[in-house]
Every structure is written in structure tokens, then in C-alpha cells.
């Protein structure tokens, strides 16, 4: 049972009573918390949690509590902008939309359908995504529909295709409430999904369950609460899992009956993990062998198991193989489709999985395989278009689209509610590609990406539009419109319908391709498209979604109130004409043909794979001796377009930083808060240093939220744009870097002393001595040059842990300065 008690979190700023609370769903992380929007005088003035919503029982994440400030921000765009003479200038909607139409038609004539690419978001509604799918595929006949979900959870999709034949996370949050053991694998919910983590910790405090295993390169807030923490070297996830699977097999901790009846390919696992003894796994991962054995024993003997994954598993080397290895563990232990068991590959954004479900990114709507002629025919009939109008073949990831932009093969790039100039890896390369292309940006604010836009369209934000979202456990939640958007602003959905009308898209009978006019009408069409498919929503309605506070798909005649877990009948979507994809070779990423898929003879059984470890491509070396990893803070969301406009969140975490281990800081003479330059083969940034014990020696951590063009704090100046061969998700988590302090040199004059230089620069004597590698007595003579930090910042960021009763808990240990007299 989830949550013993409800607790309604409220953040309201209003003089006098508000007019109403309007039903909605939080639009920040992937947990999908129910909420109400506070409205006064057609303005959003606050938010409160929905205590009747099972997912959160009234609780809200700190980012969720503060998301509404962006709605009222004074710098919201209220008219379209068109770049003229090098600058963005206000324009009418007619001017902007007509220019997009002209450019689209020109691209279709000169380059073809695949000269147009959409790059959308994981923060939109299913109705917007579905409309992108219909316009992009049936209208424009392009297959270049991607989204920032590529950076976020594309690996979820591919690991599910590979093992189970279709998208859709097998388990749900209900299983988390029942499980004996949970493994957070590269997943730090204490910061990225606080309500979800609070739910787990509340049960643990009450019942002692679940046993928590955390796997991470950093000692995260989640790891601090774990019963067993496996701190591994960067890029060695798969080595650890191979080591664990080796022990499961060796000790016979497998469900042979389940394997025999419900899986194919078991022999491949045995062969691939045979060499992965605890000793070998220890050598590669850095985790002591007996700790690996302990983890294997827990996983091998537990009666129920939920494994979650997130960016530490996805944005890394061997991403899809790692998540497939986790699926393998569930399958060989027979812990899937049962209460309290199953892989729970998470999402980062509030509706990234929704984009995949309805076909705005990835495959065709309703989990249809773009390589299967029968599925193409079905879609053509549903949309009343010719089959030849619908492009065949898997999607292209953003790195591949950036390449097409570089070589001039994209005539129009339409960017919807995402900020790739801050979020894409190796962003200077991406910037040049964007500058080489006609770019439309749909965003409520000026961002790093609007700097390279030719047209900017201002859309409505959360609270100003209606629709549905899909969270990380397949729950479809409803958002209702609380206020009108400011004058001059249209919804994303409305903008797309306008475009379709201006383009004159028609079906094969000459009737308009898009006939729905409201999100609810669109949802009704989508329900027909989904019928009979894994993500069937044919028994859902807006009214029902509101009444039951969200329902998990499939929501069909058989499951009118949704489905808490998939595969409870142990029937998987691996019949060739059921599968959403024929999959790819797990090692090379080569797409399989239909015949190759058929030859596996899975036919309703799950597929087990041998998983082969490949180390990260770019590794530390003499010139760049550190690993660099990037990640998230509890206080900010993505590139801070919304959270940076909350005074509260921005004050807590106003700027970027680099975390360095105490030992490394000692060796380099870096003091807490001083400005450092972090460089990689691609670029450099200047940020204050946080000297901590949460990153291991040899590793630098930089949060990815910060990244204006002028402040030089973007982690993505440094990252590599290598991608996973299956999911095409970039490996943000591993590259090489170097770090050095940025300092002024001061020559000691006759009027200065070591002491007053320390005082003037806000340093203690010990700190100044440390910087200059001096030992007591700290003597500096006239004419000596000494170094002082160019600047120094307070980089202490408070943690957010309500499950610890708001206990103040130091997130990191400041370096001690052990100078001893020799």
C-alpha cells in the first residue's frame, strides 16, 4: 500500500482568497504527480498537491511547487519573431506561419520529405505529439521525427523492444510498494524524483522494506540511504551486471521453469558471462568482489525485485546492453509480470514515454513497427492515406540529424519546447549545424536556441492548455486549462493545426488530413489508432482519467481501469506481426531484418541476450587525466528555462560548478569555491569548484543545467557526441577532461604582507598557503609572486530530503586543510 498518510504541499502567493483550484498534473519530472492550479483573476498564483492522487497523495517536488512562476514571468514572448538583418524582430502570426509554409514547400521541392525534421520534447501532451506524428509522417512524409527524449530515455524504448518486442515498462509504482528488493541502477530519485523516493523511504521507515541497492559512480543522496551501495568506475555498468549474472548462474539462482517456458536465448547469456568472475568484475568496476557477491546473493534470493534505471544507465557506454542485462536478470529469475517484480526503466520528463507511445518520436503510433508492411498498411487505413505516403524504416537520432544539417540535407528544422543549444553534447558542433539550417523554435522564452533561430513562435505553457501526459509507469494523466495564455500566444497543438491547414494536407479522398479541432477530439481519434495495440487506450476518456486520477495503459475493454503491470500472462510482444520493432544486433546496432527476427522464433516469449562489455571510447590520459560526468540537481530542471525563473530555486542554485574529490583537490591545490577551468578536447568552461567526497578520485562532475552562451558554464561545451549504437542516446556521462585553478598572480610589494593579501582576497592564511603550496611558517618576501583565486563563490547547495524530517544534512564534506609542521 502506498503512502500511510497524505500531505498536501502548497505553494501559493495571493493577496486575498483565490478564485479556484483547477485540476491538473505536474509538468516537471516523470513521476506524474496530481495537482491543482491556484487561479485568481485569470492568473496562476500557486499550486497544491492532489491528496486523492495515488501517485503523490498531495506531495510535490520542489521544482513542481515552483513551476508556475515561469507562467507569470515578465520576459515571456508574446509575438512571433522573425530574423531579419541578423536580428529577431516581432512579426504577426500570419507572417511567421506563412514563412514556415513557404520554407516547407521549398524544402519539399528541393530536398524532399526528409529535408524536414521535427525535434520536439518530453514535456508536451499526447495530443501534440500525435499531431506531430500525423503531420510529419502522413502530411510531410518525413521520418525525421525526433525529440529531446533521445537525450533522455531513448534507451528505455530500445531495451524494451529488444527483450519484450514492444515499448511499455513492465512494472509500475504499485510494484515498488510491494517489492522486497529495489535496485536503483544509475538512478538518483532522491534528486530527480523526490516524491517517488519519499514514497519508497516512507514504506522503508515503516516496514523495513524494500532492501535498497544503489549503483552509481557518485555517492548520491539516494546512495546514502541504500542498504548496499555499489560505487563503480565510470562506464563499467555492464561489467558489473555481467559479474552479477555470472554469480546468479553459478549459484543456480535462476528460475529454470520460467526460462524454459517463457524465454529464448538463455544459452547466449551463459556464454557471454562465463568469464565475468567476481575477480574480473572487481578489476573492471573497482567494486570489491565480495560486495559484488553480496549484491548477487540479494538479487539471487529475493522473492520480488524491481530494478529502476535512469540517466546513469542511459547516457553511458553500453546503455542499451546494460538495460537489456537488467531485463535478463528479471527474466532468468522469473521476476516479471508478478506483484512486486519487474524492470522499471524510468523516464526523465513528464511525458517522454507518451511521445513514443503516440508516434511523435520513434516508431509509428500505437507501437507499430515502421519496418512491417502490415503495420504501415494499418496506419495508412487509419489515416486514410496511401501506404506509399508513409515512410518505412526506423527513426534517426538527433546526432544523425545534426550530421544531415551539417551537410545541407535539412531545409527546415522545427524545434518544439526544448533547448538543444544547451542540452546537446558537443554543443559547438551542434551550433554550427543549426547555423547552417533554417530553424524554427517554439518556446515561451528567448533561450540559447533562439539565438540560432530564424523564426520563433511563442506557445502556451502548462496551466494554459489541456491534454494528457504519460508518466514513467504508463499512467495517463489529464491536464486541464486553468487560465488563458497571454494575448498573442497559441498552444503547441493550435500552432500545428494552423500549419496543417495552411499546408493544405489532405487524405486520399481529398478531405483535410486533420479533422479534429480540440485536444479532446484528438484524443478520441488516438484511441481508435491505439485499439488492439499494446498501448490501447480505447476505454479511456478525459472524464475517466480525471475521475480516477490517471490510469495505466492498456486501458481497454478487458482492463477498463488500466493495467498495473504488463506481462502478467507471460505473453510477450514478440510475434513478428505484433512486435514494435525487429530489433537490432545488441553489439553493433545493425537493424535486424524481418527474416532474422523470425528466425529467433521468440513467438510470444521474451528474448534473452548475451551482453558484451565495451569500455567508453574516450578515456582519461596524460593530457586529460580526469573523467568528466554530467548530471542533475534537485533544484533545477533541464536548462532552467522554467526553474531559473523561480526566485526560490534560482537563489538556492544560481550557477554551475565542478565537483572534485578532496584528494584530487589537495593534489592540485584547489580550495572550495575557487574558480577553475575545466577543459576537454572540445572546449572549456570556468566554474567554481566544490570539493567533495561524493565523487570518486579521478572524476569531475558538472551539472548540465547551466549554459548561456556568455557565462561559459555549459557542461556541453565539454561532452562527447558519441551515441549508443541501438538507442542513439548520447554518452553524456563519460569523457576525459583536465581541471586547473584560474588565478591572479600578485607580486609582494613593500606595503604588503602575506596576511593582508589573504585578508583582501577573502582567504584564510591556510587557504592562501595551500594555493601556493607553502608550509608554515608562511613567509613570502618582497618581490615574490603568489597566486590568488580569480574569484571565489559559495557553492554550498542545500539538500532536499523531506523524508528525513527536513534534517539538515551536509551534501558534501569540505576539504580539511591538514597542514602539519614538519
Amino acid at each position, binding site marked *: 500500500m502506498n503512502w500511510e498518510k497524505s500531505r498536501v504541499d502548497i505553494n501559493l502567493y495571493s493577496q486575498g482568497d483565490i478564485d479556484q483550484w483547477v485540476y491538473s498534473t505536474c509538468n516537471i519530472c516523470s513521476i506524474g504527480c496530481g495537482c491543482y492550479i491556484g487561479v485568481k483573476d485569470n492568473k496562476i498564483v500557486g499550486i497544491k498537491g492532489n491528496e486523492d492522487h495515488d501517485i503523490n497523495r498531495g506531495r510535490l517536488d520542489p521544482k513542481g511547487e515552483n513551476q508556475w512562476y515561469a507562467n507569470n514571468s515578465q520576459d515571456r514572448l508574446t509575438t512571433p519573431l522573425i530574423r531579419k538583418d541578423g536580428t529577431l524582430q516581432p512579426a504577426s502570426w500570419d507572417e511567421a506561419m506563412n514563412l514556415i509554409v513557404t520554407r516547407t*514547400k521549398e524544402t*519539399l*521541392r*528541393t*530536398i*524532399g*520529405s*526528409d529535408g524536414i525534421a521535427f525535434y520536439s520534447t518530453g514535456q508536451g501532451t499526447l495530443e501534440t505529439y500525435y499531431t506531430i506524428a500525423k503531420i510529419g509522417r502522413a*502530411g*510531410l*512524409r*518525413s*521520418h525525421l521525427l525526433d525529440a529531446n527524449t533521445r537525450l533522455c530515455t531513448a534507451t528505455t524504448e530500445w531495451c524494451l523492444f529488444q527483450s519484450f518486442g514492444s515499448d511499455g515498462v513492465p512494472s509500475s509504482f504499485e510494484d515498488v510498494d510491494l517489492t522486497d528488493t529495489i535496485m536503483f541502477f544509475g538512478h538518483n530519485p532522491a534528486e530527480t524524483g523526490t516524491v517517488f523516493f519519499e514514497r519508497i523511504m516512507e514504506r522503508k521507515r515503516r516496514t523495513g522494506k524494500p532492501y535498497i541497492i544503489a549503483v552509481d559512480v557518485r555517492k548520491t543522496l539516494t546512495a546514502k540511504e541504500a542498504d548496499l551501495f555499489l560505487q563503480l568506475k565510470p562506464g563499467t555498468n555492464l561489467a558489473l551486471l555481467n559479474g552479477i549474472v555470472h554469480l546468479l548462474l553459478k549459484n543456480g539462482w535462476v528460475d529454470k521453469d520460467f526460462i524454459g517456458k517463457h524465454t529464448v536465448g538463455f544459452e547466449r547469456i551463459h556464454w557471454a558471462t562465463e568469464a565475468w568472475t567476481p575477480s574480473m568484475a572487481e578489476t573492471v568496476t573497482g567494486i570489491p568482489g565480495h560486495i559484488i557477491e553480496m549484491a548477487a546473493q540479494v538479487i539471487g534470493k529475493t522473492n520480488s525485485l524491481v530494478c529502476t534505471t535512469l540517466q546513469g544507465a542511459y547516457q553511458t*557506454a553500453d546503455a542499451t546492453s546494460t538495460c537489456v542485462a537488467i531485463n535478463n536478470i528479471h527474466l532468468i529469475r522469473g521476476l516479471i509480470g508478478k506483484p512486486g517484480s519487474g524492470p522499471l526503466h524510468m523516464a526523465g520528463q513528464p511525458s517522454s514515454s507518451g511521445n513514443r507511445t503516440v508516434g511523435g518520436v520513434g516508431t509509428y503510433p500505437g507501437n507499430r513497427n515502421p*519496418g512491417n*508492411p502490415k503495420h504501415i498498411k494499418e496506419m495508412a487505413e487509419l489515416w486514410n492515406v496511401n*501506404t*506509399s*505516403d508513409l*515512410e*518505412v*524504416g526506423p527513426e*534517426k*537520432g538527433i*546526432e*544523425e540529424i545534426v*550530421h*544531415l544539417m551539417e551537410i545541407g540535407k535539412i531545409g527546415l528544422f522545427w524545434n518544439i519546447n526544448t533547448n538543444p543549444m544547451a542540452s546537446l553534447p558537443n554543443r559547438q558542433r551542434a551550433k554550427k549545424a543549426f547555423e547552417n539550417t533554417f530553424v524554427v523554435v517554439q518556446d515561451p522564452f528567448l533561450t540559447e536556441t533562439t539565438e540560432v533561430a530564424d523564426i520563433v513562435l511563442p506557445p502556451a505553457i502548462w496551466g494554459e492548455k489541456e491534454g494528457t501526459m504519460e508518466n514513467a509507469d504508463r499512467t495517463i494523466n489529464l491536464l486541464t486549462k486553468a487560465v488563458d495564455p497571454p494575448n498573442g500566444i497559441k498552444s503547441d497543438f493550435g500552432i500545428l493545426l494552423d500549419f496543417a491547414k495552411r*499546408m*493544405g*494536407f489532405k487524405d486520399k479522398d481529398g478531405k483535410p488530413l486533420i479533422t479534429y479541432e480540440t485536444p479532446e477530439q484528438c484524443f478520441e481519434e488516438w484511441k481508435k489508432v491505439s485499439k488492439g495495440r499494446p498501448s490501447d487506450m480505447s476505454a479511456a476518456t478525459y472524464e475517466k482519467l480525471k475521475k480516477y486520477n490517471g490510469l495505466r495503459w492498456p486501458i481497454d475493454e478487458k482492463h477498463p481501469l488500466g493495467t498495473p503491470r504488463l506481462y502478467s500472462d507471460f505473453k510477450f510482444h514478440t510475434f513478428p506481426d505484433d512486435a514494435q520493432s525487429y530489433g*537490432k*544486433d545488441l*553489439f*553493433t*546496432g*545493425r*537493424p*535486424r*531484418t*524481418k*527474416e532474422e527476427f523470425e528466425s529467433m522464433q521468440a513467438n510470444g516469449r521474451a528474448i534473452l541476450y548475451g551482453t558484451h562489455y*565495451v*569500455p*567508453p*571510447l*574516450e578515456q582519461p*590520459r596524460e593530457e586529460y587525466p580526469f573523467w568528466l560526468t554530467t548530471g542533475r540537481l534537485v533544484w533545477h530542471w533541464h536548462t532552467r528555462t522554467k526553474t531559473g525563473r523561480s526566485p526560490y530555486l534560482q537563489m538556492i542554485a544560481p550557477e554551475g560548478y565542478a565537483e572534485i574529490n578532496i584528494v584530487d583537490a589537495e593534489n592540485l591545490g584547489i580550495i572550495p569555491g575557487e574558480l577553475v577551468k575545466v577543459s576537454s*578536447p*572540445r572546449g572549456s568552461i570556468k566554474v567554481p569548484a566544490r570539493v567533495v567526497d561524493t565523487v570518486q578520485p579521478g572524476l569531475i562532475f558538472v551539472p548540465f543545467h547551466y549554459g548561456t552562451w556568455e557565462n561559459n558554464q555549459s557542461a556541453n561545451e565539454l561532452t*562527447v*557526441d*558519441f*551515441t549508443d*549504437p541501438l538507442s*542513439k542516446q548520447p554518452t553524456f556521462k563519460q569523457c576525459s577532461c583536465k581541471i586547473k585553478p584560474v588565478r591572479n598572480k600578485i607580486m609582494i610589494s613593500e606595503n604588503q604582507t602575506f596576511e593582508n593579501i589573504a585578508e583582501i582576497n577573502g582567504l584564510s592564511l591556510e587557504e592562501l598557503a595551500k594555493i601556493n603550496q607553502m608550509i608554515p611558517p608562511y613567509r613570502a618576501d618582497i618581490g615574490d609572486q603568489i597566486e590568488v583565486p580569480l574569484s571565489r563563490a559559495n557553492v554550498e547547495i542545500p539538500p532536499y530530503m523531506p523524508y528525513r524530517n527536513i534534517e539538515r544534512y551536509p551534501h558534501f564534506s569540505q576539504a580539511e586543510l591538514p597542514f602539519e609542521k614538519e
Partner: protein
Amino acid sequence: MYYTIARTYQIFQYILANFPINNNPLESRIRPLLYESNHVIYQILLILHQSQPNLHQLKQLFSVLYRDDEALDPLIREWGRASIWMEITPSNVVQHRLDLYQSIQKDLERLVPYIKGIYGEEDTRYIVPPLYRKEVGANY
């Protein structure tokens, strides 16, 4: 068609004779794709020598060949960037290798009309991925 395929085969032969170049982890992923492509092209050449080629088998082989190249493309470009960033291979060697891969892609594009001639427009869509066969599309 035969000449184009034979030339592609020669390029693969040259690439494989000089592989790996810098022994980075990516080359372990690239290797099986190169070997499979090489093998598949050889099989295609053998079939094309026959007086009555097995068109079903040929279709499978073409499907694999294009999928190999689709997987190779991002890996090869990554290999190029990594080689330069890691400073382990002279840039002229990297560029030469990238040029060779590009010429393979051009050859695969040149083959598309022949494949369409054998299998027709509709079937070809399931053999050849979109970006190799794309023509100017919808016209509104």
C-alpha cells in the same frame, strides 16, 4: 550494377586489410559490420554471376548490406571524431578512411535504381532505408 558492387567489394577489401587503425573500443563494434558487409557483397557477386539469380536470397543480402551501412555510418563518424580528439591517428589517415566510407555510401545510393528495377518501388522501401533512396517527395 555488377561493376558498382565489385568496386564496393574492393573498397571493403582494402579497409579490412588495414584494420584496425587505432585499436579503440569503437573498432570492436565496427569490425563485425565490416566483415559482414564484405561477406554479403561477396555473396551478392556470386549470385549475380548466376544465369538465374535467386532473387529472394539477393533481397535478403541487399537488406543486410544496407542495414550494415546504416549502423556503420554513425560509428564511422564517431570513430573519426574520436581519432582526432584522442590524437592517436594522423588526420590525413582519418580523412582518407572517412572518404572511403563515403564512397561506399555513394555506391549504395547508385545501386538503388537497379534494386528498384528488380523488386519494384514498394518492396524496395523495405530493402533500402529511406536516406539512400530519397527522392523529392510531397509537393503541396
